[in-house]
C-alpha cells in the first residue's frame, strides 16, 4: 500500500503566533504516499495548528516543511495554488459558504481548477448522492443539520480526489453509523493512494482502526505505530505551561 514517495515532511518545525510562546516545538515527521494517520492530542495541544501548517495556511516560525517534495520556504507564491489543489481539507467548523447551495459548495474546488460545468455537475451530484445528500443539493448550509454540513464539507474536500486529505474532527458532528460510513469513505480514498491525516478525539475510532497515530503532547509530537498504544484516557485540556 505504501509506495514510499514522500508527501509531506516536517523538519524541526516550530510555530508561534505573534510574540506568544511556541505552541508547536521541534515537530519532525514524514508521511509517505498512501499512508493513513490519526492525529490525536488533548484540546489545545495544537492539532488544528499542525494541520494549518500542512495545508499551507501558515508559515512555520522555524524549521522546514516540504510538500510533495517541494520546500515551501523556497517555493514561489505563484506556485502554491497547484500544490494546495492536491490537498483536500475538512475543517472542524466546516467553513461552508452560506449563500451557496450544497452543490455549489462542493463544486467550488472544481470551479477554481477550471473544470467544465457539465463535468462539475455530474461529479458533484454523484458524490452528494454517495454521502446521502442527494435530496439536499439545492439547500444552503444554514438550513442543513450539523451532520449534513459535515458531509458537505467532506464532499468538498474529496471532490478533486486529492493526494493528501487533512480532516479535522470529520466525525465530530455525526452519529456512529455515519461516522463509520465516513471512515469507510476515507479508507476507500486511502486505497486509491490518497494520504490521509485525520485529527480526532474519538477514541473508539482510533482503537478500532489499525493506523499509526501522531500524538501531540506538550507541544511535541510522538509517533506511534499500530499496536504500540492503546488510547485509554488523557487529560481533556493540554497543560501547556
Amino acid at each position, binding site marked *: 500500500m505504501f509506495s514510499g514517495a514522500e508527501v509531506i515532511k516536517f523538519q524541526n518545525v516550530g510555530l508561534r503566533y505573534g510574540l506568544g510562546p511556541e505552541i508547536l516545538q521541534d515537530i519532525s515527521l514524514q508521511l509517505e504516499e498512501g499512508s493513513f494517520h490519526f492525529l490525536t492530542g488533548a484540546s489545545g495541544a495544537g492539532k488544528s495548528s499542525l494541520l494549518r501548517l500542512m495545508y*499551507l*495556511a501558515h508559515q512555520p516560525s522555524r524549521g522546514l516543511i516540504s510538500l510533495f517534495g517541494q520546500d515551501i520556504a523556497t517555493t514561489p507564491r505563484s506556485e502554491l*495554488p497547484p500544490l*494546495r489543489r492536491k490537498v483536500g481539507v475538512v475543517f472542524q467548523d466546516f467553513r461552508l459558504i452560506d449563500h451557496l447551495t450544497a452543490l455549489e459548495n462542493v463544486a*467550488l474546488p472544481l470551479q477554481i481548477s477550471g473544470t467544465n460545468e457539465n463535468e462539475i455537475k455530474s461529479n458533484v451530484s454523484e458524490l452528494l448522492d454517495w454521502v446521502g445528500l442527494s435530496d439536499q443539493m439545492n439547500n444552503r448550509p444554514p438550513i442543513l443539520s450539523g451532520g449534513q454540513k459535515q458531509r458537505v464539507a467532506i464532499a468538498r474536500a474529496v471532490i478533486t480526489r486529492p493526494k493528501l486529505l487533512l480532516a479535522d474532527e470529520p466525525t465530530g458532528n455525526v452519529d456512529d453509523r455515519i461516522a463509520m460510513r465516513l471512515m469507510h469513505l476515507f479508507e476507500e480514498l486511502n486505497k486509491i493512494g490518497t494520504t490521509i491525516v485525520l485529527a480526532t478525539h474519538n477514541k473508539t475510532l482510533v482503537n478500532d482502526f489499525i493506523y499509526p497515530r501522531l500524538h501531540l503532547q506538550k507541544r511535541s509530537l510522538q509517533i506511534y505505530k499500530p499496536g504500540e498504544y492503546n488510547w485509554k484516557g488523557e487529560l481533556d485540556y493540554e497543560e501547556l505551561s
Partner: protein
Amino acid sequence: MQGKIILPLTGDVASRYVPWFIAFMVWLAVLALAAVLILSSHTEQWRNDLTGNITIQVPAHGEEKNPGTEEDFRYVLSLLRDIPEIASAEEIPRDQVIKLLIPWLGREITSGQLLLPIPRIISVKIKSKAKLDVERLWEMLNKKINGVQVDDHQVWLAKLFALTDLIEGISSLILLLVSIACVATVIFATRTSLNIHSHLIDLLHIIGARDEFVAHQFCRYAMFLGFKGGLLGIGMGIATFFVVDLLASGANSSFLVPLTLSLSQWVCIMAIALVAPAISAITSWATVLKVLSRVM
C-alpha cells in the same frame, strides 16, 4: 455556476455608497468635459471668424451729428481697395454700429438724445494666406487723417483665448481630480471588502484559488458598480446640461455661448459611462492583487 460571484459582495456597505459616489463624480466629469468641448469648438469658431478680419475706425471729429468727413472716409476706402492683400473693405451701416453700442450706452443712443461723435467703421477682409502689415497700414492712414484706428482684434482674441485656456485648464483639472477621487474610493471600498471577506478569501486560497481568481470576483463586481454609477451620473449630467441650456436661452444674453454639442462630442460624453466601470474594474483588480501579495 462558472460565472457566479462566490464572495457575497452585494451585501457590503460599499455596494450601497460606491455607485452614488461614482454617479456624482461622473456628473462632475460630464459637466467639466462638456465645458471643455463647448469652449474648444467656440474658440475655434471665434479664431476663424476674427483671423483675417480687421476693423478700421474713421473718427467723427466731434461735429454734431457728423459721422466723419466724407472726404476722409472715401480716402480710406480707396486706399484700402488699392492694397492687393485686401479682399474687401465695406462700411458697417450706421444702424448696425448703433445697435452694437446699445449694451454699453443704453437705448437712448437710438433716440438721438445722446449727441455722441460716432465713428464710421470699415470692416476689412484680408485675402486668405495673405499677410497684411497692420502697423504699416495704420501709419499710412494716420499720415493723412489723424486718429484713425486699425484694430486686428489680436488683443481681444489673446485675452479671450487666455480666458478659455484657463477654463479648459480648470475643467481638465476637475476631470483629473474626479478620476483620482474615483480611484481612491474604489481602493478604499475594495480594501474594506477584502477585510470583511478575509475568512472566505482564506478558504479560497486553501482550496487552491489563485489571487487572480479572487481579483476577478472583485473586478466583475466593481465593474458592475462602476457601470451603475456611470449611467446614473450620465443621466444626471445630461439633465443638468439641458436645464442650464434652458436657463441660458431664457436669459437671452449675447455673452453666453450656445450650449450645443456635435454628435462626436456627445459620443465623447457618453463614453464616460464606459470609462467609469473601466476605472473601477482596473483599480479593484490591482488593489486585490497588491493586498493578497502580502499574504501566504
